[in-house]
């Protein structure tokens, strides 16, 4: 695979994807479904097309998102090219555009600013250096330390950036291990796995979380930053420890000690100090939402304003931010809006007989579906497709599960997928080092998934209701 081949607009594989997408898109136009409104048909067409495009990546993920917004406006809004029948609800086209400014995106944007600042002022490496010290030099201890750091970082930074940063530190150490020392595999796998798991920990940790939060907000359920953390972090910690256990047992190192040399010193420039203060205040405000009541998305806008005004983030850095992630999330929200407002959701749910299913089974199915999907396709795309359905499902009176739990299950399920190099970018990074084979990654990844699923499906609802977070 290479950039140019991938960028050629009409490579054969891509053309095929587009073709299938068009076919999928045309199904609801050809086949008429009973009980589904005209608007529902149209959004269904868009939904099917989005599935194909997000799975095949025939066009970039965020382009699919933009396409969804456009098609929703052109086909299923009050300004549709072919007007919708009068009896159908025709959502205002601004609703779809508004998805681009969803509060969750603002929260995420705040996360970007903090992450970029941390990288710019070397805070990530410095923290890594400081945090790694107490873990000593024994390989399994070091691995635990790296996992803790990776998890903490990826709660606030993108999983990819976290993995790349830490992998750059770990690679020379891994290279020094003798050939055939399995510790090398553990060393290289622990970081992406921890980053994937850590991403679950906060609303800004990874896009699926934002998508879930966005859908919950639409459904009238507000989850604060700290509430999310309280719900997820315990499981995150358990999973982390389990993963550490699995990796160090599967791939024990023969080396008596390892030394990781992180070259960095704390940046004490005025700019860096200002950044530390801004980051500290932002995170503090996120954690204390129940005390002051200011929503995390609004808090997330604080670093955006301050860091732009004080030029902590330069124009160039501002331009090179990962805007595509925000577009991707927005596309998911727009898709969810369309699904919900046109009655497609209710029709979809009515397809199955939910009453005879145990609530746990439904939640489990969602989680497993998310896991399977996101093993192959992008986590965010998975969340985009599954969250709207899950939340609707949960909101329906026939089903006795909480929408909150369902949305979070989908988000967590999609983060749990780490069996293949293509599952997540962090996995791809680990694979690119050449130190780990797909089989080894799949084995370890399967262990994590198998441990994680029951934890979420059975333990989580019980614990959450015990904590009074879920009804």
């Amino acid at each position: 695979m290479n950039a140019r081949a991938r960028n050629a607009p009409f490579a054969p594989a891509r053309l095929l994807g587009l073709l299938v997408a068009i076919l999928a898109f045309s199904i609801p136009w050809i086949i008429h479904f009973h009980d589904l409104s005209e608007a529902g048909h149209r959004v269904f067409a868009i939904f099917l097309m989005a599935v194909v495009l997000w799975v095949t990546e025939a066009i970039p993920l965020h382009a699919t998102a933009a396409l969804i917004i456009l098609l929703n406006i052109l086909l299923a809004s009050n300004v549709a090219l072919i007007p919708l029948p009068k009896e159908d609800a025709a959502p205002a086209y601004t609703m779809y555009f508004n998805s681009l400014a969803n509060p969750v995106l603002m929260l995420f944007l705040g996360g970007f600013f903090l992450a970029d600042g941390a990288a710019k002022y070397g805070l990530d490496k410095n923290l890594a250096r400081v945090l790694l010290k107490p873990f000593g030099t024994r390989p399994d201890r070091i691995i635990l330390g790296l996992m803790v750091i990776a998890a903490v970082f990826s709660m606030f930074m993108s999983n990819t950036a976290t993995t790349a940063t830490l992998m750059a530190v770990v690679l020379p150490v891994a290279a020094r291990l003798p050939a055939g020392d399995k510790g090398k595999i553990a060393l290289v796998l622990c970081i992406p796995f921890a980053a994937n798991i850590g991403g679950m920990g906060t609303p800004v940790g990874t896009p699926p979380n934002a998508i879930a939060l966005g859908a919950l907000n639409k459904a009238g359920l507000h989850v604060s930053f700290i509430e999310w953390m309280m719900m997820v972090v315990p499981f995150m910690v358990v999973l982390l420890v389990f993963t550490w256990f699995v990796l160090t047992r599967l791939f024990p190192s023969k080396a008596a000690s390892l030394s990781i040399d992180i070259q960095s010193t704390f940046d004490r420039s005025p700019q860096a100090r200002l950044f530390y203060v801004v980051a500290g205040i932002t995170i503090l405000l996120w954690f204390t939402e129940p005390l002051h009541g200011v929503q995390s998305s609004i808090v997330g806008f604080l670093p955006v304003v301050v860091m732009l005004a004080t030029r902590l983030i330069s124009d160039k850095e501002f331009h090179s931010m990962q805007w595509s992630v925000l577009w991707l999330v927005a596309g998911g929200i727009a898709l969810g809006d369309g699904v919900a407002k046109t009655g497609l959701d209710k029709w979809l749910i009515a397809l199955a007989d939910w009453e005879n299913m145990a609530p746990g089974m439904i939640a489990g199915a969602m989680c497993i579906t998310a896991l399977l999907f996101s093993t192959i396709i992008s986590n965010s795309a998975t969340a985009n497709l599954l969250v709207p359905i899950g939340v609707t499902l949960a909101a329906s009176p026939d089903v006795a599960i909480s929408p909150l739990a369902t949305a979070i299950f989908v988000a967590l399920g999609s983060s749990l997928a780490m069996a293949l190099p293509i599952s997540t970018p962090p996995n791809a990074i680990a694979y690119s080092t050449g130190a780990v084979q797909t089989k080894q990654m799949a084995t370890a990844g399967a262990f994590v998934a198998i441990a994680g699923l029951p934890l979420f499906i059975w333990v989580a609802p019980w614990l959450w209701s015990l904590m009074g977070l879920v009804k």
Partner: protein
Amino acid sequence: MNQILILCIEDESEVRDALVRDLAPFRPVFRIEAAEDAADARTVLREAEAAGDRVGLILCDHLLPGQRGVDLLIELHREPATRATRKVLITGQAGLDDTIRAINQAGLQHYIAKPWQPADLHAIVRNQLTDYVMANEEELLPYVSTLDGPRLLEALAKK
């Protein structure tokens, strides 16, 4: 398949053999082509362009039949297709004037004296290709295991 090329230009077959073999560690990811003179190198470059391959690095001897290595590098540096290509002179015989010219006009990045040490050669090639890949490629991951992994990952983290 589109690949990044390493082009070795060296007229003595024994030296060429040795050079190509010393570049074996880069084989899995990069295509290694050899040319024996400037005209031949041009053919390789044309074919590469036709196939959609990019030339990441040129290792060029100075004393070539037909055209001097430095002159070839200067010409290639003026052409858009090979402007970004990293250029390394590998010779024992280029004089100071030629070398200065190569640095000023061909963007010469390195000078390897013959006989080379394989470790030096590897380090230089790895470095130059890492620079090239970082400057010209969107996907860095395919090169992490062959080139300077930490540098590529740090660049990736900043993206």
